[in-house]
């Protein structure tokens, strides 16, 4: 006997992600899901961004970490709410784990909630967490072929940070090839060429992110939400 089902296997994840997204919309919180390989600079990006934007916005962080709380400890000095989700070996976060920790944040006062996903370019791209948008972070030391190899992430991301540009002279990273692969996948995506140690590209990043936070709050306010 054959029983027809025709159902999205990730329905359960998607339904919860939709709930999270509605809640963030109502609470006017910009939720950014940061996805990269291990070591591309996600935590350093959060350190720099908190340093610069904490005075301006109310920021929270959900740290996805396989077993430790090391990333979270690096952010403690900014006195912001941080929740660690240990995935116990799991290679990505899912919407249920996000939804469970949201009551640790005062969503009414929060402007910006970062999710630092587990370092991995494939798995986290498949699981909608209810974020406002995905941010892809890549570094020059990983090679210029990441967009071509992981098209799903780079098609869905709203922006890309190309980090460690200060190390480019020591690698065979081909910037033109990187840019043209990315343009084929996502023609209008903004790319921030950054060095978190030297400071390149950071002002542009802060300005762009601030605009996203402000426009997210304003567009909802104007609709009377």
């Amino acid at each position, binding site marked *: *006997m054959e029983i027809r*089902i025709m159902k999205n*296997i990730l329905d359960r994840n998607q339904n919860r992600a939709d709930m999270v997204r509605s809640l963030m919309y109502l609470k006017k919180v910009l939720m950014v899901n940061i996805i990269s390989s291990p070591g591309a600079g996600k935590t350093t990006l959060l350190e720099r961004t908190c340093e610069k934007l904490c005075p301006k916005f109310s920021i929270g962080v959900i740290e996805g970490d396989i077993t430790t709380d090391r990333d979270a400890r690096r952010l403690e000095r900014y006195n912001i709410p941080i929740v660690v989700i240990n995935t116990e070996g799991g290679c990505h976060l899912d919407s249920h784990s996000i939804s469970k920790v949201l009551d640790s944040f005062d969503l009414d006062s929060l402007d910006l909630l970062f999710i630092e996903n587990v370092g991995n370019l494939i798995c986290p791209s*498949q699981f909608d967490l209810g974020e406002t948008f995905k941010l892809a972070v890549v570094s020059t030391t990983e090679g210029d072929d990441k967009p071509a190899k992981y*098209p799903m992430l780079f*098609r869905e991301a709203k922006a890309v940070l190309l980090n460690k540009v200060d190390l480019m002279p020591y690698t065979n990273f081909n910037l033109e090839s990187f840019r043209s692969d990315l*343009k084929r996948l996502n023609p209008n995506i903004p790319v921030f060429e950054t060095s978190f140690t030297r400071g390149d590209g950071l002002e542009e990043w802060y300005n762009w992110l601030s605009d996203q936070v402000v426009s997210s709050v304003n567009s909802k306010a104007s609709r009377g939400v």
Partner: protein
Amino acid sequence: MHEISIAGDLARIVLDAAAGNGLSEVTSVNVSFGSMIQIVPEIFKFAFGEAVKDTLAEGAEVNIEILPFKARCRQCGRESDPTGDSFNCVNCGSTDLEIVQGKELFIKSIEGE
């Protein structure tokens, strides 16, 4: 290794459907995956086998259909299936494409007694 959690979700759906339809054994599970999801069939089958161990779906065969990437061009309206790592419309060369197939993660049916 997203195969493991997707296989876990599939196992839950399969077992619910089997129970709801009064099956005592599930012999096969038929699924369709889009090529952009980057599922490795061997890993997925292994993970599903582990997820349904000691249940009425233990040993069920998983038949995976891979759906190739297809896109519709927002400029000229043509549907195309760019190959390799090219994401250009085969008709006009535009990169302004809407994905119409390639992101699926569907269970189609189960078979059993």
